[in-house]
């Protein structure tokens, strides 16, 4: 697959899922199990993506400046900082560690 094909197929899939929510009859999906699985899917994928993004290094694991950066982000979230402050705090932490360590 080319990057263009990946982008177009993935975009259409995500857009199609949004439309699905407006097309499916309410009664069909208001059952607890599909609702629960969908919510938990989001949690599992985000959690796995955090790990891959923080520890992944090609086909291996590396502990580097990204780990303290993520801890700073968690601290800022716990303090209820705005989203953009959390993102910037993590970036600045990683950049400073790479510049000076």
């Amino acid at each position, binding site marked *: *697959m080319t*990057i263009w094909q*990946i*982008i*177009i*197929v*993935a*975009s*259409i*899939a*995500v*857009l199609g*899922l949004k*439309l*699905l*929510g*407006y097309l*499916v009859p*309410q009664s069909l999906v*208001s059952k607890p*199990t599909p609702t*629960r*699985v*969908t*919510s*938990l*899917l*989001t*949690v*599992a*994928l*985000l*959690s*796995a*993506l*955090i*790990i*891959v*993004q923080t*520890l*992944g290094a*090609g*086909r*291996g694991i590396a502990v580097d*400046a*990204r780990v303290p950066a*993520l801890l700073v*982000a968690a601290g800022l979230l716990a303090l*209820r*900082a705005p*989203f*953009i402050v*959390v*993102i*910037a705090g*993590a*970036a*600045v932490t*990683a950049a400073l560690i*790479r510049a000076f360590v």
Partner: protein
Amino acid sequence: MSSAARDPERAAAIRASWAVGIAVSAYGISFGALAVTAGLTIWQTCVLSLVMFSGGSQFAVIGILASGGTAAGGAAIVSAALLGTRNSLYGLRVAPLIGGPWPRKALAAHWTIDETTAVSTAQPTLKSQRTGFWFTGAIIYIGWNLTTLAGALIGNLLGDVSRYGLDAAAAAAFLGLLWPRLKQLQPVVVAVGAAVVAAVLVPFVPAGIPVLAAALVAVVVGVTNWFGSPAADLAESAPDPMGSDSRGSGE
């Protein structure tokens, strides 16, 4: 409530829309910069924000392409789609608020994301819910696409953005999306389980597969309802992008 002229509820909805919209749009910069670093062109980056328009799915695509290249394309597509299933749920909640003909509903569907759902469902009246939805949608759609373009241009100039910590910013973005969902035991168990599965698999399987394998944790726990509380339902799965009261009245 008696003063129809000023409609304070509608004004509050508009304030919330701006607060959420500006904050979310700002991090489109990091998306744009990371996307070009992952090997996308500026055009490809912009198409993702214009057509896919769902932050979690977009970051998943570029994160997996960055580590696995086009060989991981299948995993990138499936991850984006699985993350996108929550938008279907939001659609179910928001659709009854959106009246009008099909073109309007189709646009509403395109704009049905974490933030529009959170702002609109936090408003007290039908009218202010609609206002919150459309204002948040328009502000984020325009803002997110402009900052994506700006970020892609900056990323092209900067080259290796890891020097500026933008790779860590992506992890922080995922954490920011995850954080408000960890209010009950069951999602915390799933988050920990998924993290362990992903970490264990990364060295042994191709890029993208650890994320998909971690999704199985959600399916198993969700179907069996391990660690479930009977009160967990749709109402509590609503996201909260500000990490606090999204009505935006503030101090």
